[in-house]
Structure formats: structure tokens, C-alpha cells
């Protein structure tokens, strides 16, 4: 081995510079959310002075009494629930079809499922908007759900397909061999084995739908989901901390399902990727 004066290409410990850069990137990724939380407690009504002149819990009471927040929240919850249902059904069916058979166009199905999330949201949004206008469909809860489900199918599909691939095909055969019809096999064998994948995929779909704004902007018409409500507040000068409270709620409502989903699929190859 040649003698080396410089340290090797891979020491057991990272250099100080690398650690510092890593830490800086981590802070850059996470500190801004702390700022949001901080300003939910500021006493200022219309500005974001740092440091805040004073702290208060009053804005929570104000937010509680604002009916427009409740309306937006309720719409977002209904949309996310309906979207999750549609995504679970379509994603599972697509995963089952792709898993069970090699058929012509199988790659196309995978591609089609991934496409809505690979293309910028604005394309999905304006495409649906253009179809809605061509067909003169009135805006409703369902126009929003159609948009959301389109890009949520993929998370259920990915999770369920990964689980199908880990589950031995012989189990389904064994069940049929022992006398169970396809329906019984689905109920007693397939469903229990994909249950956590469905739960994880469903939660990710819920989180994706709950905080979506780009596609929603095009398919909501005059309706306000919680993200759209926050978006419109950006230009309004009054009661700014209320927006922060709504934002905190959105953070919680998306992070909790994501963390749970991560837990459920740990080490199972169910990749979380947009």
C-alpha cells in the first residue's frame, strides 16, 4: 500500500466541514416551520417583526370563532376523505392488475399512474380545468376530488404493489388449493396481508390531498379548501397570526399521517416518493 500523508478517502468520521454543511442544510429545511409556530403567538396583528414584541394565546380564540376557517377545514376534510376512498379503490385495483398478470401495456399502466405526479401540478390542474370548461361541468366537491384522486392513486398503488411483491404468490394458490374461491381468498388472505399497506397508502393520500393547492386552484371554482383559504390570506393585512394557526393545523394534519405511514411501511420497500 502506498504511504499516505493525506487522510484516506473515507475516514470513520466525517470532517468538520461536512458535518457543518450537513447541519446547515438540516436547519435550512426545518427552521422555517419553527418560525410559523412562533408567529402564531405574536401580539402583532399585521406585521412579522422579529423578535415579536410580545406573545399571546389570544389568536387561538380568534381562529376558533372564525366561521370561514371552519368552512374551509370542513371542505378540506370532506375532499381528503373522498379522495382517499377513490385512491384506495383505484390504486389497489391497478396494483392487483399489474401484479397478477403480464399483459400487453402493463408498463403503460405504471406510467399512466405515475404521470400525474411526475408532471408539474399546474399541467394536471389546467388540463382538468380545460376539460371542465369544455364539458361545462359546474364546480363542486367532486371536481376537486377528481383532481386530487388523479395524483393520489400513485401512493396507494406504490404501497400496495410493493406489498404484493413481498407476499408469496403461493399463499394465494394455497388458499385456492384448500377450497377458497377468489372472493374468499381475497377476504381471508389478500386483504389481511395488504392491510397495513392500504392504511399507509390511504394516510399518504389523505395528507397529499389535505394540503394540495396547485391543482385545487384550477378545479375548485369559488370553493375554498384550507390551503386555498391560507393562500388568499397571504395578501390580506389583518389578523395575520390566524393564518399561522391554520398553517400549524395543516402541518399537523399532514405530518401525523406521514409519520404513521412511514412507521407502517418501515423496511417493506413501500417507498414514499412523490
Amino acid at each position, binding site marked *: 500500500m502506498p504511504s499516505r500523508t493525506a487522510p484516506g478517502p473515507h475516514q470513520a468520521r466525517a470532517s468538520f466541514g461536512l458535518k457543518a454543511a450537513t447541519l446547515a442544510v438540516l436547519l435550512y429545511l426545518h427552521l422555517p416551520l419553527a418560525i410559523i409556530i412562533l408567529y402564531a403567538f405574536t401580539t402583532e396583528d399585521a406585521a412579522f417583526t422579529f423578535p415579536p414584541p410580545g406573545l399571546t394565546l389570544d389568536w387561538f380564540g380568534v381562529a376558533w370563532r372564525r366561521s370561514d376557517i371552519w368552512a374551509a377545514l370542513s371542505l378540506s376534510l370532506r375532499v381528503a376523505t373522498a379522495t382517499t376512498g377513490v385512491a384506495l379503490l383505484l390504486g389497489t385495483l391497478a396494483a392487483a392488475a399489474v401484479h397478477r398478470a403480464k399483459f400487453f401495456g402493463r408498463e403503460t399502466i405504471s406510467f399512466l399512474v405515475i404521470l400525474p405526479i411526475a408532471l408539474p401540478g399546474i399541467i394536471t390542474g389546467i388540463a382538468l380545468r380545460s376539460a371542465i370548461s369544455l364539458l361545462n361541468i359546474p364546480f363542486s366537491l367532486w371536481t376537486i376530488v377528481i383532481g386530487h384522486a388523479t395524483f393520489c392513486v400513485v401512493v396507494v398503488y406504490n404501497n400496495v404493489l410493493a406489498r404484493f411483491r413481498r407476499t*408469496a404468490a*403461493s*399463499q394465494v*394458490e*394455497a*388458499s*385456492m*388449493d*384448500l*377450497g*377458497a*374461491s377468489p372472493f*374468499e381468498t381475497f377476504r*381471508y*388472505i389478500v386483504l*389481511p*396481508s395488504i392491510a397495513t399497506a392500504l392504511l399507509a397508502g390511504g394516510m399518504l393520500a389523505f395528507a397529499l390531498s389535505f394540503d394540495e393547492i396547485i391543482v385545487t386552484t384550477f378545479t375548485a371554482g369559488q370553493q375554498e379548501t384550507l390551503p386555498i383559504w391560507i393562500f388568499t390570506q397571504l395578501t390580506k393585512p389583518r389578523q395575520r397570526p390566524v393564518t399561522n394557526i391554520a398553517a400549524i393545523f395543516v402541518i399537523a394534519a399532514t405530518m401525523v399521517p406521514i409519520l404513521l405511514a412511514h412507521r407502517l411501511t418501515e423496511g417493506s420497500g413501500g417507498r414514499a416518493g412523490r
Partner: protein
Amino acid sequence: MAAVRFLHVSRHFGDVKAVDHVSLDIHDGEFFSLLGPSGSGKTTCLRLIAGFDHPTAGAIELHGVGVSGIPPYERDVNTVFQDYALFPHMSVGQNVAYGLMIKRVPPTERDARVREMLDLVRLGGMAERRPSQLSGGQRQRVALARALINRPRVLLLDEPLGALDLKLRQQMQIELKAIQQHVGITFIYVTHDQEEALTMSDRLAVFNNGRVEQVGAPAEVYEHPATDFVAGFVGVSNLVSGETARAITGSPETFTIRPEKILMHEPDAAIEDGLCWIDGRVRDVVYLGPHTRYRVDLDAGGELTVTQQNVDSTSLDVQAARGRRVRLVWPRAHNRSVITTG
């Protein structure tokens, strides 16, 4: 009436002929093995019987009834899978009871039969365990109990002992055979292990490249291999042809001779009537414990493998044979002419 009958069955996957014009009769109550190297079509045949796969051509009958279009869950056969395919979210008892639950057998009868089955495979008291808590051999028994509880008329076993170590495998071979005799149903057993097939089967079929090379009782297949492939695959065999064959028998026709039939003598040993002989030099000696394997270069070209029992020789004695000139002698009656199938 045959328990299972294959009538000119083929199964092609694109250009690959996994099963190619197979016709077979498997009798009721026999232990029948499908023996062959991997990719020879034996597992595909099993899947065709179970109904997981469909013939491209030909027909399969179970107890005289054509099964084309009948799904697995309507066929009176059950399978022990190579990977056991135990349901991980169910206990051992639930796994075994699965078939009865599907058939809506009342719980009291179900429990009794599960207990009986678990006792049969010597897993009494294990009903509450999870499959993941069991050893490989125990899982294998659960799979067996689960497949037997429906009282099928035919049991299909797909290399069920493949994942077990040698000792356990030999023990399970004996147990499986005993269980088969106890329940008295047809066992169709897929294996690539010729020793396993020879020990356990009443009859066996040797598969190669999707075709059946030979069907018969173990001794018949071993002693009278129909083709060069069977001679080579079932046990070890010397294949002699061309000039070497002419030097021994006077004819260039291909024949096979088992290594254990050949005796190694001094180079000047006398030859009696009805014996074949040929001279050569020992090139290689492999001491194998109970016997020793010699490779002998023949003066007439080619080589023969010879095995000799180590009756009173030690490993040192046998090693000394290397390089020695020998005369190989055997009864002509042990020569088997075979068809070359490649």
C-alpha cells in the same frame, strides 16, 4: 381407474416447451414421483394437476373426469408447497383449519380434526403458535397437515423437503412414506433428488426437457434405464460408445454400465465366460468413506468410473492405487443398451 391421467399434455410458454406431449397414468393410492432436473417440467405438471396453470394442448383427468376449466378450489386435490405457503397472519391451528373453515365445517368438528391432523404430523400442542415461531421441519409438517385435512384423494407435494438439511430430510422421507401408507391416498411427489425418488416411490417418472423419459418402479428405472439421460441422472453411470464399445463388446453400439457393477483386478486376471473386460490405468482416486471411486483411463481410449466397497481397505491403501495398471471386469448381463436422447 387412474387417479391422475395425462393425455398428450403440453404446456408452452412462448417458445419454451415446459411440458411437451406428456402422457402418464398415476394409479390410485400409489406414491408417485416426478423426478428431473430443474426446468424439466415436473413442477409445471404438478401445477397443471392442481389447476394453477392450464395445458396448452391435451387433457388431464382426475379419477376419470376431465378437469379442464375447473378451478383449483373445485378440484379434489391439495398441495404442499415448496415454500410451504403458510399464512403468516394465522396461527398453526388456523392454518390447518383453513380448508374446513372455507367448507363451513362446524367449529367443534373442525377443532377435533385439526387436533387429529396435528397429532398425525407430531405437532400436538403447537396449534397456538405462529408459523414464524416454528423451525423449517415443523413448518413443513404444518403444510402437510393443512393439505391433508380436506381429505383429498390426491396430494401434490412440490419438493417439500428441499429447504431442509440432510438429516432432517432423511427423517422426513421416512415419516412422509409412513403417513402416506396411513392415509392411503395418492401422493404425487416432485423432486430433483434421485435418491429421494428411489427411496420413497412406488413408481416414478423421469423428466427431461418437458418430456417423460421413463416411467417405472425404482429398481426398474435404476437397473434398466431406458435412455442415456435416465442412466446418467438416476444414479451414476458410465456411458460407453464408439471404439471403446467395440473394444469391449465387439460392437460400436452405445451401452451403459453402473460403476458399482465393475470389479477392479490385477492386469493379468483370468476372464471367465459371460464377463466383459478392458485394461487401463488408474488416474484418480476419491475416498468416500463406505466406498472409493476410481477413474480409470482405458487403453482403448475414454475412461470408466468404478466404485469399490471399502471392505477392509483404508484410505492409505486406496490412495496407493493411483497410477496402477488394472483390468476392469464385469458380467456382460449388466450392460444396458440405451436410446440416446441427448
